C-alpha cells in the first residue's frame, strides 16, 4: 500500500456460480480487490462481465438458488461477510455498507413516503427515536441537495424527478454513515446534464464524509472524471487494475486498449472510422481454462488457448491478466 492505510473492504478469490436449467454459469471467477478508506474504486465492464454480481455476492443479496457463492473471502474491517449469520449481515447492509442502485424508480418503494424510507435504516440500525430520525433525515436530504427538505419528507417517490430520486437513494445509503458505499450504475438511467449534477454531488460528499466508494459503470467517461483507481472486468474476471491516470495513459491489457480506442470523443480530434472489437463477449458455461478475451484479442498466441492468465504486476499499483507483454512488445516469457 502506498500510504500504509489498511483497506476497509477486502475481497479475495470470490467465485459465484448460477445454476440454470441450461447448466452452470460461472459469473464471477476468482475476483480479488480492496478499497481503502476515502478511496473511490471504479469498476468498469460490459453487461455480463460480472461487475454487479460481484457486488451483490459481497453482502449476500443474490437469491440462492440459483446463485451460489462458492469460494472466497469478503473482509469488512476483518470480519468475513461470507461466514457471518444473516442477522449480522442485515445489520451491515444499509449500516456499514450503503448501496445505490441503477434505477431509482424501482429501488424506492412507491407506497411509502420518502421520509419513511430514509428514516427506516436510522431507526433499525442506529435505534434513533422518531424525532431524532426525522431530524437526521432532513439533514441528509439537505446534504444531497434537495431543496425544501423538511416539507419534501412527506412526498412519495413519484413526486420526484429522476435526478432527485437518485439523490434520495444516495441519502438513504448515507443514512448510517457507511464505511463503504457501493454504487451500481447510479447515473446510467439519468440524462447527461443530470448525471453531471450527481457526479458533482458525489465528489463533494466524498470530501465531506471520507467513506470508501465502489462505483460500478460501463461508461469510461464517468470513471475518468471520478475514480482514484480503476478495475476493468471482462468475462467474470478482473483483467486490469490501475490508478485512473495510469490506466488511461498506459493500458496494459488488450481489452482495455481496445475499449479505449472504440469510444468516440466529444472533444479533441475526431476519428474517421471507429475501431471495432470484433465478436461477442464469452458465455461463461464452465470455469475458464483459457483467457476469456482470446477470441476477440489482436495479440493472442498459443498460450492464451491453454491457460487462463492470472494477474501480474506490470507497474506501480498496476496489474493486468495477460500473457502479452506490452513493455517488450512480445509474449511474456514463461
Amino acid at each position, binding site marked *: 500500500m502506498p500510504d500504509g492505510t489498511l483497506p476497509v473492504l477486502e475481497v479475495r478469490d470470490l467465485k459465484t456460480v448460477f445454476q440454470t436449467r441450461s447448466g452452470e454459469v460461472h459469473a464471477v471467477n476468482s475476483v480479488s480487490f480492496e478499497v481503502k478508506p476515502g478511496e473511490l474504486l471504479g469498476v468498469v465492464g460490459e453487461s455480463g462481465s460480472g461487475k454487479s454480481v460481484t457486488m451483490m455476492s459481497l453482502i449476500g443479496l443474490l437469491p440462492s438458488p440459483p446463485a451460489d457463492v462458492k469460494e472466497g473471502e469478503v473482509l469488512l474491517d476483518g470480519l468475513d461477510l461470507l461466514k457471518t449469520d444473516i442477522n449480522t449481515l442485515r445489520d451491515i447492509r444499509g449500516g456499514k455498507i450503503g448501496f445505490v442502485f441503477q434505477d431509482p424508480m424501482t429501488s424506492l418503494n412507491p407506497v411509502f413516503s420518502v421520509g419513511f424510507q430514509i428514516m427506516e435504516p436510522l431507526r433499525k440500525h442506529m435505534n434513533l427515536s422518531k424525532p431524532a430520525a426525522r431530524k437526521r433525515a432532513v439533514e441528509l436530504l439537505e446534504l444531497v441537495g434537495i431543496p425544501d427538505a423538511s416539507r419534501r419528507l412527506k412526498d412519495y417517490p413519484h413526486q420526484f424527478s429522476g435526478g*432527485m430520486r437518485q439523490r434520495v437513494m444516495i441519502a438513504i445509503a448515507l443514512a448510517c454513515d457507511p464505511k463503504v458505499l457501493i454504487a451500481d450504475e447510479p447515473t446510467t438511467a439519468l440524462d447527461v446534464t443530470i448525471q453531471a449534477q450527481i457526479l458533482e454531488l458525489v465528489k463533494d460528499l466524498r470530501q465531506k464524509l471520507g467513506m470508501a466508494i465502489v462505483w460500478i459503470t460501463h461508461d469510461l467517461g464517468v470513471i475518468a472524471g471520478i475514480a482514484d483507481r480503476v478495475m476493468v472486468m471482462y468475462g467474470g474476471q478482473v483483467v486490469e487494475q490501475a490508478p*485512473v*491516470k495510469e490506466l488511461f495513459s498506459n493500458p496494459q491489457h488488450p481489452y482495455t486498449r481496445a475499449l479505449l480506442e472504440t469510444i468516440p470523443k466529444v472533444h479533441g480530434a*475526431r476519428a474517421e472510422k471507429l475501431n*471495432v472489437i470484433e465478436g461477442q463477449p464469452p458465455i461463461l458455461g464452465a470455469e475458464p481454462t483459457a483467457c476469456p478475451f482470446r477470441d476477440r484479442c489482436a495479440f493472442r498466441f498459443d498460450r492464451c488457448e491453454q491457460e487462463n492468465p492470472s494477474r501480474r504486476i506490470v507497474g506501480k499499483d498496476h496489474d493486468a491478466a495477460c500473457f502479452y507483454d506490452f513493455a517488450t512488445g512480445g509474449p511474456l516469457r514463461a
Partner: protein
Amino acid sequence: MLDDAKQPLVRVQNLKMHFPIFGGLLHRRIGEVKAVDGISFDIMEGETLGLVGESGCGKSTVGRALLRLYEATAGEVIIDGADIAHASPEELRMMRPTMQMIFQDPQASLNPRMTVSDIIGEPLREHQKGSAADREDRVLELMDQVGLNRDFAKRYPHEFSGGQRQRIGIARALALNPKFIVCDEPIAALDVSIQAQVVNLLEELQDRLGLTYLFISHDLSMVRHIADRVAVMYLGQVAELAPRDDIYSKPLHPYTQALLSAVPEPDPSIAEATDRIILTGDVPSPSNPPKGCNFCTRCPQVMDICKVKKPIFQEVEQGRFVACHLFENNEATAANAASEV
C-alpha cells in the same frame, strides 16, 4: 444551406406534435403535451442529420411524426418531393418504400414468432410482386450486406445477441431500397464494444447505397462521429442547428454549451482540466412550458427578455441556426445584453 446545388431530400416546416391530455370526471381534454412545438429543418441527399437532446425533449416524436407514424398536429413534411403530412392512406402506402425506420430496442421491434427470413422478407411480400424464390434470394443478399451469416435465416430473434438483432432490424429497413432512414437510438441498447460495430455498418451502407439518415441519439460523442450536421433539441424545439465541426468546437446556444460540457470525457487529464457548466434544476414539463424562451428556467446566461419573448430560430452564421436572444442581431436590446454577458 450547405450546398445550393443539392436539393434537400427531406424538408420539415414548422412541425408540431401535441398529444392531448384527458382528465376529470367527463374525460374532457384538459390540456396538451407539446412534445414537438414548431420545428423546421432540411436534410440533404446522402447526408446524416444528428438529432440530439435529453430524454423527453421530443426527438423520437420528431422521427415518428416524420414518417407519419403519428398524425402531426400541424406542419409540413416533404420527403423526396412527396407531401407526407397530407397524403391519403393509399398514397402514403406507395411512399413507404422510400422511407424506413430502425428502432431502439431490437428485442421489442422484432416479432419473436417470426424467423429472420420472414422478418426481413415481410416488406418484400407487402410491397413487391415476385416469387418466393426471388424473395428468398433478396433476403440472403440483405443478410450478407449487414454481416449476418446466411445459415441463420431460419432462426428466431431470441437466438441472436443484441448487436445481431440490430443487424436484422437494419436488413429489414434496407429491404425495399429506401432513400431515407430514421435511426431512432439504434445503439442505445447495445454494449460499448458492439456499438462501434453497428455504427460502422451504418456508415458503410450509407457510402455504398447513398442513404440519407436522421440519426436520433442522446449520445453526443457518437453523433459527433456519424453526423454531418447536428440539431440540438430542448423541450420540443430546436435550440441550435449547425454543421458538426462548428457545433462541437464552438457551440453557440447556452444549452448546447452546457450539454457538451456535461458529457464525461474518457480521459482523466481532460476531465480534470475542463470547467463544467452544471445546469441547475430539471427540464420543465412539456405540458406547461415556461413563457418566453423554453430554456430560461435553467439558462446560466438568462436575461429579462428571455422570460417574456420567445427567441426566433434564425441563421446567425453561414449554415448555423440558433434560437437564442443572445444572437438576435436585429434587436438592439438583445445585442446590447449579449455584449454585457
